[in-house]
């Protein structure tokens, strides 16, 4: 039996617990209803809609220099498109870029690296090769990993990638 998915409102509560005030985002169908639409309506977040994901790497970095905590919300294809920015800014300049990445197409209950979908299966090996910390948020209960991962990223001034394995349950859907 497959466990329940993570809850969008619990993920959002973890973000708030970790002091996240800014969200740079490109829509991703995995996180659209459970995260991005609720975040877009939540006055506790300043949502910055971006056109390409590497913009978000830099925006989050700039916010970090201003002492503000942020996340970059995107799909794994956007992460793959942003690898050089993440390499330069997150890894080599040691900046705490926090990414929430919807794994579009990942099979429920299958580890990301074991996915039959290439764009999913290569994500963890790439993050490991770059030395970027990651956690997989796949089931109810995994949400509790989020705030500590964000705290660690800021404490160490290093990036972290939170891989959203399937659509978080939404308390309300639509825009």
């Amino acid at each position: 039996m497959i466990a329940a998915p993570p809850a969008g409102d619990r993920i959002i509560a973890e973000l708030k617990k970790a002091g996240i005030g800014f969200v740079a985002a490109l829509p991703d169908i995995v996180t659209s209803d459970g995260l991005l639409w609720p975040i877009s309506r939540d006055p506790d977040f300043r949502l910055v809609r971006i056109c390409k994901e590497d913009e978000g790497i830099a925006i989050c970095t700039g916010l970090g220099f201003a002492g503000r905590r942020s996340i970059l919300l995107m799909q794994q294809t956007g992460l793959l498109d942003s690898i050089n920015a993440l390499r330069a800014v997150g890894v080599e300049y040691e900046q705490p870029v926090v990414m929430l990445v919807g794994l579009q197409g990942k099979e429920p209950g299958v580890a990301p690296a074991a996915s039959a979908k290439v764009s999913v299966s290569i994500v963890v090996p790439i993050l490991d090769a770059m030395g970027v910390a990651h956690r997989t948020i796949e089931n109810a209960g995994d949400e509790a990993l989020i705030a500590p991962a964000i705290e660690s990223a800021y404490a160490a001034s290093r990036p972290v990638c939170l891989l959203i394995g399937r659509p978080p349950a939404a308390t309300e859907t639509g825009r």
Partner: protein
Amino acid sequence: MMKRDACLRILARHVRDEAVVATYQAAFDWMAIAPRDLNYVSIGAMGIASSHGLGLALGRPDRRVIVLDGDGSLLMNLGSLATIAAAAPRNFAHLVCVNGVYEANGSHPLPAGDRIDFAAIARGAGISNAGTIDTLAEFEAAMPEILRGEGPVFRALRVEAGEPSPQDYAFIHGAQTRRRFKTAFSAR
């Protein structure tokens, strides 16, 4: 057409506590002309200087942020103009050094580099306060708007290379440089 170093010397005479985000050739020139803790260099991932600047501006709305971009760099991140227009930071000025070539990589020409109107692109993206500056006198006259005008402000600066500047990557990449910037930028 302006010599870029002469142009940046004008800016250097006017800056006070503004953060200046510079990239590639403009960064090398700026770091030599105006070494200061509030300089932020965007090098390593070409194209995202404007996005670094946007993050800084959103994080510290009480501080002016000036981006010294390049035309080749901006072409890699034209969407950032729409992002900036939507976020509408009032404390943000975006200066783009337009020379039509990838100067840091052998001075090869940009595609359509001889005819792109960057101010028109910025206006088309929704940044109404956009224009082009061709002479040092115009640049000097534009200083109040660049430093204090309601942002986002966009100006394309038509430049050519001036005196060569040292390309001291070790300094501009250094962890100490980043720490100094963070301390200066986060000071109240």
